[in-house]
């Protein structure tokens, strides 16, 4: 007997042997399940149920199995199943719909342009959400179409909300910045040695002295020596001779710590009552330590620390007066050279003063340096002109 079309039936108040005899004579196959008081429970084929229905006083189906069971269940729960399925479809549809789009930028023009682009690519309110692949394609399309405006763009999906994050292209701002009218001024007091300019009006020449902040290349293009014709973004480079006075002192005795290359690893327990060495040396002279916690657990009353000690040798040096002077010159030159950039160099140096003291020597050295003195100063709207456009 297959389970396909079976039913579990209950026959009430029937003798077991009478029931068996009746079923056997009616050619009904069955599996006897159990007997509870006078009631008998059997598994039979659903087609045989009609045969025996008339032969017993009280017989009823308790459970359906197989396809018939499924059909009966569907018939009974049709409305519930239909509502559930319909609800599920609506839920899936709603959760796949775009309800909000926001673009994370304060630039209203860019925001509007992106909104139009997104809409053209099918991303708009109440439209269906896009797959990851489609979103990537849309993102790349938008970046490609707006390469002059956008550096980077990402479409983030947050439930039914699309958040567009972007980085505007800096070139745009840079271009705007390049158009701002400005002067080229001196960054420090100097004697001009070299001027190159591509935009603006040169106010100074080579071998002219300038003070810090003084205009070298003017951004105001002046007509008839009193009217400003135009304002430009002055462009150029100015090198000049700059002067420094450096004071250096060098002691006759100095101590130097020379690394020996030896390292001691000291492991110890750290408790509230003090430290206890596990391995290594606790006291070491002339060492630089580096500590690292190896074990630190809240349930332990101690920590295990590793201390790495690099051993140095302590040496005292005595210097003669002439050596101290040379050392001072060397140090001062090093200090100046550290400041220099490409194309800059020391023109000359001159010792102004030597002061030998009991423990050290002090030197004052004057340097002439060839240095880039280019600086910029933005031109104010009202700078230099009156209400009639004349220079003040």
């Amino acid at each position, binding site marked *: *007997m297959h389970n396909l079309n079976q039913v579990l039936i209950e026959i009430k108040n029937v003798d077991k*042997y009478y029931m068996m005899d009746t079923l056997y004579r009616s050619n*009904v*196959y069955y599996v006897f399940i159990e007997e509870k008081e006078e009631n008998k429970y059997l598994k039979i084929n659903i087609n045989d149920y009609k045969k025996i229905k008339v032969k017993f006083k009280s017989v009823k189906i308790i459970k359906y199995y197989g396809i018939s069971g499924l059909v009966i269940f569907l018939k009974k729960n049709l409305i519930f199943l239909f509502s559930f399925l319909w609800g599920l479809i609506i839920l899936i549809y709603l959760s796949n719909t775009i309800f909000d789009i926001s673009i994370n930028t304060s630039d209203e023009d860019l925001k509007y342009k992106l909104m139009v682009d997104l809409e053209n690519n099918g991303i708009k309110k109440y439209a269906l959400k896009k797959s990851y692949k489609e979103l990537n394609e849309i993102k790349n399309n938008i970046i490609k179409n707006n390469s002059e405006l956008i550096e980077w763009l990402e479409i983030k999906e947050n439930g039914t909300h699309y958040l567009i994050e972007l980085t505007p292209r800096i070139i745009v701002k840079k271009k705007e910045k390049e158009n701002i009218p400005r002067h080229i001024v001196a960054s420090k007091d100097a004697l001009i040695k070299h001027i190159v300019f591509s935009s603006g009006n040169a106010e100074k020449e080579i071998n002219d002295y300038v003070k810090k902040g003084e205009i070298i290349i003017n951004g105001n293009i002046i007509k008839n020596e009193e009217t400003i014709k135009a304002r430009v973004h002055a462009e150029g480079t100015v090198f000049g001779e700059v002067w420094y006075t450096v004071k250096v002192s060098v002691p006759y005795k100095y101590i130097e710590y020379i690394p020996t290359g030896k390292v001691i690893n000291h492991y110890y327990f750290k408790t509230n009552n003090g430290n206890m060495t596990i391995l290594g040396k606790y006291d070491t002279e002339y060492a630089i330590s580096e500590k690292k916690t190896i074990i630190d657990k809240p349930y332990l009353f101690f920590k295990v620390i590793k201390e790495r000690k690099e051993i140095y040798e302590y040496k005292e040096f005595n210097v003669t007066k002439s050596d101290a002077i040379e050392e001072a010159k060397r140090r001062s030159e090093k200090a100046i050279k550290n400041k220099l950039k490409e194309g800059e160099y020391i023109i000359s140096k001159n010792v102004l003063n030597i002061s030998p003291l009991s423990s050290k020597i002090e030197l004052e050295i004057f340097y002439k340096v060839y240095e880039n003195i280019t600086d910029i100063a933005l031109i104010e709207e009202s700078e230099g002109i009156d209400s009639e456009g004349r220079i003040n």
Partner: protein
Amino acid sequence: MVEKLINYIKNDDYLIGIYDKYIYIYNYNELINITSSYAEIKFKNKLVKIRGEKIFIKKLENKELLIEGTFKEIDLDA
């Protein structure tokens, strides 16, 4: 070979398993008679008679029988 194939497709071999309170029968031809004290089952070329008390068929299928009861005598006639 053909005989083996036919035997595989149409297996006529019968089986009678006897346990303390059950008798399992496979491949019977006909259940001739059954009461609470007697059962008579026919195979292709054999006849089985079971005598006992409280004889009851727990499973009645096309080819299978599971009989429950206290068995006193089982006869297998040719």
